[in-house]
Protein backbone atom coordinates (compact mmCIF):
# COMPACT_ATOMS: atom_id res chain seq x y z
CA UNK A 1 0.00 0.00 0.00
CA UNK A 2 1.44 3.31 -0.93
CA UNK A 3 2.12 5.81 1.78
CA UNK A 4 -0.29 8.33 0.26
CA UNK A 5 -3.14 5.81 0.38
CA UNK A 6 -2.34 4.91 3.96
CA UNK A 7 -2.13 8.55 5.03
CA UNK A 8 -5.47 9.27 3.38
CA UNK A 9 -7.11 6.30 5.14
CA UNK A 10 -5.98 7.57 8.53
CA UNK A 11 -6.88 11.17 7.64
CA UNK A 12 -10.41 10.10 6.67
CA UNK A 13 -10.67 8.07 9.86
CA UNK A 14 -9.64 11.14 11.87
CA UNK A 15 -12.18 13.34 10.09
CA UNK A 16 -14.94 10.83 10.74
CA UNK A 17 -13.95 10.69 14.38
CA UNK A 18 -14.07 14.47 14.71
CA UNK A 19 -17.56 14.49 13.19
CA UNK A 20 -18.84 11.48 15.17
CA UNK A 21 -17.49 12.75 18.45
CA UNK A 22 -19.36 15.99 17.75
CA UNK A 23 -16.24 18.20 17.99
CA UNK A 24 -16.95 19.71 14.58
CA UNK A 25 -20.61 20.33 15.36
CA UNK A 26 -19.72 21.93 18.69
CA UNK A 27 -17.33 24.29 16.92
CA UNK A 28 -19.81 25.12 14.17
CA UNK A 29 -22.67 25.65 16.65
CA UNK A 30 -20.63 27.95 18.87
CA UNK A 31 -19.38 29.87 15.83
CA UNK A 32 -22.93 30.51 14.66
CA UNK A 33 -23.76 31.90 18.11
CA UNK A 34 -20.60 34.05 18.16
CA UNK A 35 -21.29 35.41 14.68
CA UNK A 36 -24.85 36.31 15.64
CA UNK A 37 -23.56 38.11 18.74
CA UNK A 38 -20.88 39.81 16.63
CA UNK A 39 -23.51 41.11 14.23
CA UNK A 40 -25.59 42.45 17.11
CA UNK A 41 -22.62 44.01 18.98
CA UNK A 42 -20.97 45.66 15.95
CA UNK A 43 -24.32 46.97 14.75
CA UNK A 44 -24.75 48.70 18.13
CA UNK A 45 -21.19 50.10 17.92
CA UNK A 46 -21.91 51.44 14.44
CA UNK A 47 -25.15 53.02 15.74
CA UNK A 48 -23.30 54.80 18.54
CA UNK A 49 -20.27 55.78 16.50
CA UNK A 50 -20.58 55.37 12.72
CA UNK A 51 -17.30 54.53 11.01
CA UNK A 52 -16.66 57.78 9.19
CA UNK A 53 -12.93 58.27 9.69
CA UNK A 54 -9.63 56.68 10.67
CA UNK A 55 -10.23 57.07 14.42
CA UNK A 56 -13.45 55.05 14.28
CA UNK A 57 -11.80 52.60 11.92
CA UNK A 58 -9.01 52.06 14.43
CA UNK A 59 -11.54 51.56 17.23
CA UNK A 60 -13.60 49.02 15.31
CA UNK A 61 -10.44 47.27 14.10
CA UNK A 62 -9.25 46.83 17.68
CA UNK A 63 -12.51 45.15 18.66
CA UNK A 64 -12.22 42.98 15.55
CA UNK A 65 -8.65 42.04 16.49
CA UNK A 66 -9.83 41.08 19.99
CA UNK A 67 -12.47 38.91 18.38
CA UNK A 68 -9.83 37.35 16.14
CA UNK A 69 -7.72 36.71 19.22
CA UNK A 70 -10.59 34.81 20.77
CA UNK A 71 -10.81 32.67 17.63
CA UNK A 72 -7.04 32.27 17.65
CA UNK A 73 -7.24 30.99 21.23
CA UNK A 74 -10.12 28.63 20.42
CA UNK A 75 -8.20 27.27 17.43
CA UNK A 76 -5.01 26.85 19.43
CA UNK A 77 -6.79 25.00 22.24
CA UNK A 78 -8.75 22.85 19.77
CA UNK A 79 -5.50 21.95 18.03
CA UNK A 80 -3.79 21.03 21.29
CA UNK A 81 -6.66 19.06 22.81
CA UNK A 82 -7.42 17.20 19.59
CA UNK A 83 -3.78 16.31 18.90
CA UNK A 84 -2.58 15.45 22.42
CA UNK A 85 -4.48 12.13 22.64
CA UNK A 86 -3.98 11.29 18.95
CA UNK A 87 -1.02 8.92 19.16
CA UNK A 88 0.34 8.04 22.62
CA UNK A 89 -2.90 7.06 24.37
CA UNK A 90 -3.94 5.01 21.35
CA UNK A 91 -0.72 3.03 21.67
CA UNK A 92 -1.18 2.60 25.40
CA UNK A 93 -4.78 1.44 25.17
CA UNK A 94 -3.99 -0.96 22.33
CA UNK A 95 -6.03 0.76 19.64
CA UNK A 96 -3.06 1.33 17.38
CA UNK A 97 -1.62 -2.18 17.80
CA UNK A 98 -4.21 -3.72 15.52
CA UNK A 99 -3.77 -0.89 13.01
CA UNK A 100 0.05 -0.98 12.95
CA UNK A 101 0.07 -4.74 12.46
CA UNK A 102 -1.49 -4.00 9.05
CA UNK A 103 0.63 -3.01 6.06
CA UNK A 104 0.94 0.58 7.20
CA UNK A 105 3.95 2.45 8.53
CA UNK A 106 4.04 4.46 11.71
CA UNK A 107 4.88 7.62 9.80
CA UNK A 108 1.71 7.15 7.72
CA UNK A 109 -0.39 6.99 10.87
CA UNK A 110 1.28 10.14 12.20
CA UNK A 111 0.89 12.08 8.96
CA UNK A 112 -2.67 10.83 8.50
CA UNK A 113 -3.59 12.05 11.96
CA UNK A 114 -1.93 15.40 11.23
CA UNK A 115 -3.66 15.77 7.88
CA UNK A 116 -7.11 14.91 9.23
CA UNK A 117 -6.88 17.38 12.10
CA UNK A 118 -5.26 20.00 9.84
CA UNK A 119 -8.22 19.84 7.45
CA UNK A 120 -10.61 20.43 10.35
CA UNK A 121 -8.60 23.33 11.80
CA UNK A 122 -7.85 25.07 8.50
CA UNK A 123 -11.43 24.60 7.33
CA UNK A 124 -12.79 25.99 10.55
CA UNK A 125 -10.35 28.94 10.61
CA UNK A 126 -11.18 29.93 7.05
CA UNK A 127 -14.92 29.54 7.44
CA UNK A 128 -15.18 31.33 10.78
CA UNK A 129 -12.53 33.95 9.92
CA UNK A 130 -14.05 35.14 6.66
CA UNK A 131 -17.55 35.05 8.11
CA UNK A 132 -16.47 37.26 11.01
CA UNK A 133 -14.69 39.77 8.77
CA UNK A 134 -17.71 39.82 6.48
CA UNK A 135 -20.21 40.27 9.31
CA UNK A 136 -18.18 43.13 10.84
CA UNK A 137 -17.90 44.73 7.39
CA UNK A 138 -21.65 44.50 6.86
CA UNK A 139 -22.49 45.76 10.34
CA UNK A 140 -20.04 48.68 10.45
CA UNK A 141 -18.83 49.31 6.94
CA UNK A 142 -15.24 48.72 8.10
CA UNK A 143 -13.18 46.40 5.99
CA UNK A 144 -9.40 46.28 6.41
CA UNK A 145 -7.38 47.05 3.30
CA UNK A 146 -6.18 43.49 2.94
CA UNK A 147 -8.07 41.24 5.37
CA UNK A 148 -7.79 38.08 3.26
CA UNK A 149 -4.60 36.65 4.80
CA UNK A 150 -5.91 37.01 8.40
CA UNK A 151 -7.85 33.68 8.57
CA UNK A 152 -4.94 31.96 6.81
CA UNK A 153 -2.52 33.23 9.45
CA UNK A 154 -4.89 31.96 12.16
CA UNK A 155 -5.03 28.60 10.37
CA UNK A 156 -1.22 28.56 10.23
CA UNK A 157 -1.00 29.28 13.94
CA UNK A 158 -3.35 26.36 14.60
CA UNK A 159 -1.17 24.12 12.41
CA UNK A 160 1.93 25.07 14.40
CA UNK A 161 0.23 24.11 17.65
CA UNK A 162 -1.28 20.99 16.14
CA UNK A 163 2.19 19.88 15.05
CA UNK A 164 3.69 20.64 18.45
CA UNK A 165 0.99 18.75 20.37
CA UNK A 166 1.14 15.81 17.97
CA UNK A 167 4.92 15.59 18.39
CA UNK A 168 4.49 15.54 22.17
CA UNK A 169 1.79 12.89 21.76
CA UNK A 170 4.30 10.43 20.33
CA UNK A 171 6.16 10.22 23.63
CA UNK A 172 4.40 12.12 26.44
CA UNK A 173 1.11 11.31 28.17
CA UNK A 174 -1.74 13.31 26.66
CA UNK A 175 -2.45 15.48 29.71
CA UNK A 176 1.22 16.39 30.17
CA UNK A 177 1.78 16.92 26.45
CA UNK A 178 -1.32 19.10 26.16
CA UNK A 179 -0.33 21.15 29.19
CA UNK A 180 3.20 21.70 27.86
CA UNK A 181 1.85 22.75 24.46
CA UNK A 182 -0.55 25.26 26.06
CA UNK A 183 2.22 26.69 28.24
CA UNK A 184 4.51 26.93 25.20
CA UNK A 185 1.75 28.78 23.33
CA UNK A 186 1.40 31.24 26.21
CA UNK A 187 5.16 31.72 26.47
CA UNK A 188 5.45 32.36 22.74
CA UNK A 189 2.73 34.99 23.04
CA UNK A 190 4.52 36.64 25.96
CA UNK A 191 7.83 36.45 24.11
CA UNK A 192 6.17 38.36 21.28
CA UNK A 193 5.21 41.09 23.74
CA UNK A 194 8.75 41.20 25.12
CA UNK A 195 10.15 41.35 21.61
CA UNK A 196 7.82 44.32 20.97
CA UNK A 197 9.18 46.03 24.07
CA UNK A 198 12.67 45.43 22.70
CA UNK A 199 11.64 47.02 19.39
CA UNK A 200 10.01 50.00 21.08
CA UNK A 201 12.97 50.75 23.34
CA UNK A 202 15.60 49.57 20.89
CA UNK A 203 16.79 46.97 23.39
CA UNK A 204 18.83 44.30 21.63
CA UNK A 205 18.60 41.69 24.39
CA UNK A 206 14.81 41.73 24.45
CA UNK A 207 14.62 41.94 20.69
CA UNK A 208 16.92 38.93 20.32
CA UNK A 209 15.03 37.00 22.99
CA UNK A 210 11.79 37.67 21.10
CA UNK A 211 13.36 36.51 17.84
CA UNK A 212 14.76 33.33 19.40
CA UNK A 213 11.38 32.55 20.96
CA UNK A 214 9.73 33.03 17.57
CA UNK A 215 12.23 30.67 16.00
CA UNK A 216 11.56 28.04 18.66
CA UNK A 217 7.78 28.33 18.36
CA UNK A 218 6.53 30.62 15.58
CA UNK A 219 2.88 30.75 16.65
CA UNK A 220 3.04 34.42 17.66
CA UNK A 221 4.53 35.37 14.28
CA UNK A 222 1.36 34.18 12.62
CA UNK A 223 -0.93 35.71 15.21
CA UNK A 224 0.74 39.09 14.69
CA UNK A 225 0.23 38.65 10.97
CA UNK A 226 -3.50 38.12 11.52
CA UNK A 227 -3.73 41.13 13.84
CA UNK A 228 -1.86 43.29 11.31
CA UNK A 229 -4.15 42.21 8.47
CA UNK A 230 -7.24 43.29 10.42
CA UNK A 231 -5.88 46.75 11.34
CA UNK A 232 -6.17 49.79 9.05
CA UNK A 233 -3.04 50.48 7.04
CA UNK A 234 -0.61 52.96 8.57
CA UNK A 235 -1.05 55.28 5.58
CA UNK A 236 -4.83 55.39 6.02
CA UNK A 237 -4.44 56.31 9.68
CA UNK A 238 -1.81 58.95 8.93
CA UNK A 239 -3.99 60.51 6.24
CA UNK A 240 -6.62 61.05 8.90
CA UNK A 241 -4.11 62.51 11.33
CA UNK A 242 -3.95 59.39 13.50
CA UNK A 243 -0.50 58.20 14.53
CA UNK A 244 0.16 55.11 16.57
CA UNK A 245 2.91 55.51 19.17
CA UNK A 246 5.97 53.29 19.07
CA UNK A 247 4.75 51.76 22.31
CA UNK A 248 1.82 50.38 20.32
CA UNK A 249 4.20 47.56 19.37
CA UNK A 250 3.98 46.35 22.98
CA UNK A 251 0.44 45.36 22.39
CA UNK A 252 -0.14 41.71 21.60
CA UNK A 253 -3.12 42.92 19.58
CA UNK A 254 -1.04 44.74 17.00
CA UNK A 255 1.13 43.35 14.26
CA UNK A 256 2.19 43.29 10.68
CA UNK A 257 2.72 40.85 7.87
CA UNK A 258 5.37 38.29 8.88
CA UNK A 259 7.21 38.56 5.57
CA UNK A 260 8.64 35.75 3.43
CA UNK A 261 11.40 34.72 5.87
CA UNK A 262 9.06 34.03 8.74
CA UNK A 263 6.45 32.38 6.54
CA UNK A 264 9.13 30.10 5.13
CA UNK A 265 10.40 29.44 8.66
CA UNK A 266 6.89 28.41 9.74
CA UNK A 267 6.79 25.84 6.92
CA UNK A 268 10.29 24.60 7.78
CA UNK A 269 9.36 24.45 11.47
CA UNK A 270 6.23 22.36 10.79
CA UNK A 271 8.06 19.97 8.46
CA UNK A 272 11.03 19.69 10.84
CA UNK A 273 8.83 19.06 13.87
CA UNK A 274 6.90 16.39 11.99
CA UNK A 275 10.21 14.77 11.05
CA UNK A 276 11.28 14.74 14.71
CA UNK A 277 7.88 13.34 15.71
CA UNK A 278 8.28 10.59 13.12
CA UNK A 279 11.67 9.69 14.51
CA UNK A 280 10.32 9.63 18.06
CA UNK A 281 7.40 7.44 17.06
CA UNK A 282 9.59 5.04 15.06
CA UNK A 283 11.82 4.52 18.06
CA UNK A 284 8.98 4.06 20.50
CA UNK A 285 8.39 0.57 21.84
CA UNK A 286 4.80 -0.48 21.30
Amino acid at each position, binding site marked *: *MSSIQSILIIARLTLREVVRRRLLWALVGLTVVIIALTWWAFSRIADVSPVTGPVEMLAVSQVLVMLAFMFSFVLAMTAVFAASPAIGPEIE*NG*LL*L*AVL*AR*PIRRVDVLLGRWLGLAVVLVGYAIMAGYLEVGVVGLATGYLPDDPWPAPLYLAGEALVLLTLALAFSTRIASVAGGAIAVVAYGLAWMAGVMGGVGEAFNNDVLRTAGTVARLILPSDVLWRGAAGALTPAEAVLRSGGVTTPALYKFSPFSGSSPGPFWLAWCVVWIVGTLAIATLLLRRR*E*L
Partner: protein
Amino acid sequence: MVAEGADPTIETHELRKEFGRIVALAGLTMAVPRGEVFGFLGPNGAGKTTAVKLLLGLSRPTAGDARVLGAPLGDVRARRRIGYLPELFRYQGWMTAREVLALHCELARLARSDWVVEIRAALDLVGLADRADDRTETYSKGMQQRLGLGVALLGRPDLLVLDEPTSALDPVGRQDVRGIIGALRDRGTTVFLNSHLLTEVERVCDRVAIVDRGRVVSELTMAELSRERGVGLRVSSLDGVGREVAARYGPTRVDGEWLFVDGIADAEVPSLVAELVARGGAIHAVVPTRHTLEERFMSLLGAAADQGPAADDQVPAAASTPAEALAEPDAEGRP
Protein backbone atom coordinates in the same frame (compact mmCIF):
# COMPACT_ATOMS: atom_id res chain seq x y z
CA MET B 1 10.63 -29.52 13.42
CA VAL B 2 9.73 -28.15 10.01
CA ALA B 3 7.29 -29.93 7.77
CA GLU B 4 9.16 -31.50 4.91
CA GLY B 5 9.14 -29.63 1.66
CA ALA B 6 7.77 -26.41 3.05
CA ASP B 7 9.52 -23.38 4.45
CA PRO B 8 8.43 -22.61 7.98
CA THR B 9 5.96 -19.76 8.35
CA ILE B 10 8.02 -18.33 11.19
CA GLU B 11 11.70 -18.92 11.72
CA THR B 12 13.70 -17.15 14.42
CA HIS B 13 17.35 -17.42 15.29
CA GLU B 14 18.68 -16.14 18.61
CA LEU B 15 16.14 -13.32 18.60
CA ARG B 16 16.94 -11.02 21.47
CA LYS B 17 15.17 -8.01 22.93
CA GLU B 18 16.40 -5.79 25.72
CA PHE B 19 14.58 -2.91 27.36
CA GLY B 20 17.44 -1.04 28.94
CA ARG B 21 18.98 -3.52 31.36
CA ILE B 22 15.99 -5.83 31.28
CA VAL B 23 16.32 -8.79 28.93
CA ALA B 24 12.84 -9.64 27.70
CA LEU B 25 14.00 -12.21 25.16
CA ALA B 26 17.34 -13.88 25.71
CA GLY B 27 17.68 -15.66 22.38
CA LEU B 28 14.56 -17.12 20.86
CA THR B 29 15.19 -19.84 18.31
CA MET B 30 12.24 -21.69 16.90
CA ALA B 31 10.46 -22.68 13.71
CA VAL B 32 6.72 -22.68 13.17
CA PRO B 33 5.83 -25.11 10.38
CA ARG B 34 3.41 -24.01 7.69
CA GLY B 35 -0.21 -24.96 8.25
CA GLU B 36 0.13 -25.96 11.90
CA VAL B 37 -1.47 -24.59 15.03
CA PHE B 38 1.49 -23.62 17.15
CA GLY B 39 1.11 -23.00 20.88
CA PHE B 40 3.51 -20.55 22.46
CA LEU B 41 3.53 -21.06 26.20
CA GLY B 42 5.36 -19.66 29.14
CA PRO B 43 4.95 -18.11 32.56
CA ASN B 44 4.34 -14.42 33.08
CA GLY B 45 7.35 -12.41 32.05
CA ALA B 46 8.75 -15.17 29.84
CA GLY B 47 8.77 -12.82 26.85
CA LYS B 48 5.78 -14.19 24.93
CA THR B 49 4.09 -10.92 24.07
CA THR B 50 7.46 -9.33 23.32
CA ALA B 51 8.12 -12.15 20.86
CA VAL B 52 4.73 -11.62 19.24
CA LYS B 53 5.39 -7.90 18.83
CA LEU B 54 8.78 -8.60 17.28
CA LEU B 55 7.27 -11.06 14.82
CA LEU B 56 4.68 -8.49 13.77
CA GLY B 57 7.20 -5.68 13.37
CA LEU B 58 5.64 -3.71 16.23
CA SER B 59 8.95 -3.79 18.06
CA ARG B 60 12.55 -4.11 16.86
CA PRO B 61 14.92 -6.83 18.03
CA THR B 62 18.14 -5.90 19.79
CA ALA B 63 19.90 -8.83 18.10
CA GLY B 64 19.21 -11.99 16.16
CA ASP B 65 17.17 -12.46 13.04
CA ALA B 66 13.89 -13.91 11.96
CA ARG B 67 11.71 -14.38 8.94
CA VAL B 68 7.94 -14.39 8.87
CA LEU B 69 6.23 -15.72 5.74
CA GLY B 70 9.65 -15.68 4.11
CA ALA B 71 10.19 -11.95 4.69
CA PRO B 72 12.30 -10.09 7.23
CA LEU B 73 10.62 -8.80 10.40
CA GLY B 74 8.40 -5.78 9.83
CA ASP B 75 8.09 -6.29 6.09
CA VAL B 76 5.04 -4.29 5.06
CA ARG B 77 4.02 -6.64 2.25
CA ALA B 78 4.20 -9.71 4.49
CA ARG B 79 1.87 -7.96 6.93
CA ARG B 80 -0.86 -8.09 4.29
CA ARG B 81 -0.93 -11.85 4.85
CA ILE B 82 -1.04 -11.73 8.65
CA GLY B 83 -4.06 -11.47 10.93
CA TYR B 84 -3.45 -10.35 14.50
CA LEU B 85 -5.55 -10.31 17.63
CA PRO B 86 -3.63 -8.35 20.28
CA GLU B 87 -3.70 -9.29 23.93
CA LEU B 88 -4.73 -5.70 24.59
CA PHE B 89 -7.62 -5.54 22.14
CA ARG B 90 -9.46 -2.31 21.64
CA TYR B 91 -11.24 -0.83 18.68
CA GLN B 92 -12.64 2.60 17.86
CA GLY B 93 -15.56 2.93 20.28
CA TRP B 94 -17.34 5.48 18.11
CA MET B 95 -17.50 3.01 15.21
CA THR B 96 -19.83 0.10 14.70
CA ALA B 97 -18.41 -3.40 14.36
CA ARG B 98 -19.19 -3.30 10.64
CA GLU B 99 -17.27 -0.04 10.29
CA VAL B 100 -14.29 -1.39 12.23
CA LEU B 101 -14.18 -4.40 9.94
CA ALA B 102 -14.47 -2.14 6.88
CA LEU B 103 -11.58 -0.04 8.15
CA HIS B 104 -9.42 -3.13 8.48
CA CYS B 105 -10.48 -4.36 5.05
CA GLU B 106 -9.14 -1.06 3.74
CA LEU B 107 -5.98 -1.22 5.84
CA ALA B 108 -5.38 -4.81 4.71
CA ARG B 109 -5.88 -3.58 1.14
CA LEU B 110 -8.60 -6.04 0.29
CA ALA B 111 -10.44 -5.45 -2.96
CA ARG B 112 -13.44 -3.23 -2.24
CA SER B 113 -15.71 -5.68 -4.06
CA ASP B 114 -14.82 -8.33 -1.45
CA TRP B 115 -15.56 -6.21 1.61
CA VAL B 116 -19.22 -7.09 1.98
CA VAL B 117 -18.57 -10.82 1.78
CA GLU B 118 -15.53 -10.63 4.07
CA ILE B 119 -17.34 -8.55 6.68
CA ARG B 120 -20.43 -10.73 6.65
CA ALA B 121 -18.34 -13.89 6.96
CA ALA B 122 -16.32 -12.44 9.86
CA LEU B 123 -19.45 -11.28 11.69
CA ASP B 124 -21.13 -14.64 11.27
CA LEU B 125 -18.03 -16.55 12.33
CA VAL B 126 -17.58 -14.64 15.58
CA GLY B 127 -21.30 -14.42 16.32
CA LEU B 128 -21.71 -10.65 16.10
CA ALA B 129 -24.07 -10.40 13.13
CA ASP B 130 -26.94 -9.24 15.36
CA ARG B 131 -24.91 -6.42 16.87
CA ALA B 132 -22.96 -5.44 13.76
CA ASP B 133 -24.42 -1.94 13.60
CA ASP B 134 -23.98 -1.05 17.26
CA ARG B 135 -21.12 1.12 18.39
CA THR B 136 -18.34 -1.02 19.80
CA GLU B 137 -18.21 1.14 22.95
CA THR B 138 -21.48 -0.57 23.91
CA TYR B 139 -19.86 -4.01 23.62
CA SER B 140 -18.81 -6.17 26.53
CA LYS B 141 -15.17 -7.14 26.75
CA GLY B 142 -15.96 -10.59 25.40
CA MET B 143 -17.78 -9.10 22.41
CA GLN B 144 -14.84 -6.80 21.73
CA GLN B 145 -12.54 -9.82 21.74
CA ARG B 146 -14.86 -11.59 19.32
CA LEU B 147 -14.70 -8.51 17.11
CA GLY B 148 -10.91 -8.59 17.37
CA LEU B 149 -10.91 -12.17 16.17
CA GLY B 150 -13.17 -11.18 13.28
CA VAL B 151 -10.77 -8.36 12.38
CA ALA B 152 -7.83 -10.78 12.45
CA LEU B 153 -9.62 -13.22 10.15
CA LEU B 154 -10.32 -10.71 7.37
CA GLY B 155 -8.78 -11.55 4.03
CA ARG B 156 -8.03 -15.19 4.86
CA PRO B 157 -4.54 -14.53 6.24
CA ASP B 158 -1.78 -17.11 5.78
CA LEU B 159 -0.66 -16.52 9.35
CA LEU B 160 -2.95 -15.77 12.26
CA VAL B 161 -1.32 -14.51 15.45
CA LEU B 162 -3.59 -14.79 18.45
CA ASP B 163 -2.36 -13.33 21.71
CA GLU B 164 -4.49 -14.73 24.55
CA PRO B 165 -7.53 -14.98 22.25
CA THR B 166 -9.98 -16.25 24.84
CA SER B 167 -9.01 -14.19 27.88
CA ALA B 168 -12.36 -12.37 27.96
CA LEU B 169 -14.59 -15.12 26.58
CA ASP B 170 -17.13 -17.28 28.34
CA PRO B 171 -16.99 -21.08 27.94
CA VAL B 172 -19.23 -20.96 24.87
CA GLY B 173 -16.99 -18.35 23.31
CA ARG B 174 -13.93 -20.44 24.02
CA GLN B 175 -15.50 -23.42 22.37
CA ASP B 176 -16.34 -21.25 19.36
CA VAL B 177 -12.71 -20.11 19.14
CA ARG B 178 -11.51 -23.70 19.28
CA GLY B 179 -13.85 -24.48 16.40
CA ILE B 180 -12.60 -21.51 14.40
CA ILE B 181 -8.97 -22.48 14.94
CA GLY B 182 -9.75 -26.05 13.89
CA ALA B 183 -11.39 -24.78 10.68
CA LEU B 184 -8.39 -22.56 9.97
CA ARG B 185 -6.04 -25.51 10.34
CA ASP B 186 -8.19 -27.46 7.89
CA ARG B 187 -7.78 -24.75 5.29
CA GLY B 188 -4.01 -24.59 5.79
CA THR B 189 -3.66 -21.40 7.83
CA THR B 190 -0.76 -21.27 10.25
CA VAL B 191 -1.97 -20.23 13.69
CA PHE B 192 0.44 -18.86 16.28
CA LEU B 193 -1.37 -19.11 19.59
CA ASN B 194 -0.04 -17.39 22.65
CA SER B 195 -2.09 -18.52 25.62
CA HIS B 196 -1.94 -19.22 29.30
CA LEU B 197 -4.79 -21.72 29.11
CA LEU B 198 -2.86 -24.95 28.79
CA THR B 199 -5.86 -27.20 28.43
CA GLU B 200 -7.07 -25.10 25.59
CA VAL B 201 -3.70 -25.14 23.91
CA GLU B 202 -3.57 -28.89 24.34
CA ARG B 203 -6.92 -29.25 22.64
CA VAL B 204 -6.22 -27.17 19.55
CA CYS B 205 -2.46 -27.13 18.95
CA ASP B 206 -0.40 -29.46 16.80
CA ARG B 207 2.84 -28.35 18.41
CA VAL B 208 3.89 -26.25 21.37
CA ALA B 209 6.99 -24.37 22.39
CA ILE B 210 7.46 -23.62 26.05
CA VAL B 211 9.47 -20.49 26.72
CA ASP B 212 11.04 -19.39 29.94
CA ARG B 213 13.23 -16.35 30.51
CA GLY B 214 13.19 -15.55 26.85
CA ARG B 215 14.31 -18.94 25.54
CA VAL B 216 12.52 -22.01 24.23
CA VAL B 217 13.03 -24.66 26.90
CA SER B 218 11.01 -27.35 25.17
CA GLU B 219 9.23 -27.99 21.92
CA LEU B 220 7.04 -30.99 21.30
CA THR B 221 4.11 -32.11 19.24
CA MET B 222 0.81 -33.12 20.75
CA ALA B 223 1.34 -36.56 19.20
CA GLU B 224 4.56 -36.90 21.20
CA LEU B 225 2.79 -35.81 24.35
CA SER B 226 -0.05 -38.26 23.88
CA ARG B 227 2.45 -41.10 23.63
CA GLU B 228 3.67 -40.31 27.12
CA ARG B 229 1.24 -42.68 28.79
CA GLY B 230 1.42 -44.75 31.95
CA VAL B 231 -0.55 -46.52 34.61
CA GLY B 232 -1.40 -45.75 38.23
CA LEU B 233 -1.93 -48.56 40.74
CA ARG B 234 -3.37 -48.18 44.23
CA VAL B 235 -1.47 -50.90 45.91
CA SER B 236 -0.74 -51.95 49.48
CA SER B 237 1.57 -54.53 51.07
CA LEU B 238 4.18 -54.02 48.39
CA ASP B 239 7.79 -54.30 49.43
CA GLY B 240 10.92 -52.85 47.86
CA VAL B 241 11.37 -55.86 45.61
CA GLY B 242 7.87 -55.32 44.26
CA ARG B 243 8.75 -51.75 43.35
CA GLU B 244 11.91 -52.99 41.62
CA VAL B 245 9.74 -55.30 39.56
CA ALA B 246 7.54 -52.38 38.57
CA ALA B 247 10.60 -50.35 37.63
CA ARG B 248 11.39 -52.90 34.91
CA TYR B 249 8.27 -51.67 33.05
CA GLY B 250 9.20 -48.01 33.18
CA PRO B 251 10.12 -45.08 35.44
CA THR B 252 8.16 -45.27 38.70
CA ARG B 253 7.19 -42.85 41.40
CA VAL B 254 5.14 -43.26 44.54
CA ASP B 255 2.55 -40.81 45.77
CA GLY B 256 0.85 -42.07 48.95
CA GLU B 257 -0.86 -45.36 48.16
CA TRP B 258 -0.38 -44.80 44.46
CA LEU B 259 2.41 -46.27 42.43
CA PHE B 260 2.86 -44.72 38.99
CA VAL B 261 4.63 -46.46 36.12
CA ASP B 262 5.31 -44.17 33.15
CA GLY B 263 5.70 -45.27 29.56
CA ILE B 264 4.26 -48.73 30.00
CA ALA B 265 2.42 -50.16 27.01
CA ASP B 266 -1.23 -51.08 27.51
CA ALA B 267 -0.48 -54.73 26.68
CA GLU B 268 2.05 -54.96 29.49
CA VAL B 269 -0.32 -53.83 32.25
CA PRO B 270 -1.87 -57.30 32.98
CA SER B 271 1.62 -58.78 33.26
CA LEU B 272 2.70 -55.98 35.68
CA VAL B 273 -0.38 -56.51 37.82
CA ALA B 274 0.19 -60.30 37.90
CA GLU B 275 3.82 -59.85 38.95
CA LEU B 276 2.92 -57.39 41.72
CA VAL B 277 0.23 -59.71 43.05
CA ALA B 278 2.72 -62.58 42.95
CA ARG B 279 5.09 -60.43 45.09
CA GLY B 280 2.35 -60.03 47.70
CA GLY B 281 0.98 -56.68 46.60
CA ALA B 282 -2.75 -56.05 47.10
CA ILE B 283 -4.07 -54.17 44.07
CA HIS B 284 -7.12 -51.97 44.82
CA ALA B 285 -7.27 -50.02 41.60
CA VAL B 286 -5.55 -49.77 38.21
CA VAL B 287 -6.04 -46.56 36.23
CA PRO B 288 -4.43 -45.52 32.96
CA THR B 289 -2.72 -42.11 33.11
CA ARG B 290 -1.25 -39.82 30.54
CA HIS B 291 0.88 -36.76 30.84
CA THR B 292 -0.99 -33.53 30.35
CA LEU B 293 0.57 -30.47 28.85
CA GLU B 294 0.12 -28.78 32.19
CA GLU B 295 2.23 -31.43 33.90
CA ARG B 296 4.91 -31.14 31.25
CA PHE B 297 4.78 -27.36 31.55
CA MET B 298 5.02 -27.41 35.33
CA SER B 299 7.81 -29.95 35.45
CA LEU B 300 9.85 -28.06 32.84
CA LEU B 301 9.48 -24.75 34.59
CA GLY B 302 10.11 -26.36 37.95
CA ALA B 303 13.34 -27.85 36.61
CA ALA B 304 14.32 -24.54 35.07
CA ALA B 305 13.66 -22.75 38.33
CA ASP B 306 15.80 -25.28 40.19
CA GLN B 307 18.67 -24.52 37.85
CA GLY B 308 18.38 -20.76 37.90
CA PRO B 309 18.08 -17.95 40.38
CA ALA B 310 14.78 -16.49 39.14
CA ALA B 311 12.71 -17.35 42.18
CA ASP B 312 9.70 -15.47 40.79
CA ASP B 313 9.18 -18.11 38.18
CA GLN B 314 9.50 -21.13 40.43
CA VAL B 315 6.58 -23.46 40.42
CA PRO B 316 6.31 -26.87 42.08
CA ALA B 317 6.32 -29.93 39.89
CA ALA B 318 2.79 -31.22 39.59
CA ALA B 319 1.90 -34.58 41.08
CA SER B 320 0.12 -36.75 38.63
CA THR B 321 -2.77 -38.64 40.13
CA PRO B 322 -5.35 -40.67 38.28
CA ALA B 323 -8.03 -38.31 39.52
CA GLU B 324 -6.23 -35.37 37.92
CA ALA B 325 -5.50 -37.34 34.81
CA LEU B 326 -9.11 -38.32 34.36
CA ALA B 327 -10.71 -35.08 35.44
CA GLU B 328 -12.32 -33.03 32.68
CA PRO B 329 -10.86 -29.59 32.94
CA ASP B 330 -13.19 -26.65 33.35
CA ALA B 331 -13.20 -23.57 31.17
CA GLU B 332 -10.28 -22.05 33.06
CA GLY B 333 -8.17 -25.07 32.32
CA ARG B 334 -8.26 -26.24 35.92
CA PRO B 335 -8.65 -30.01 36.31
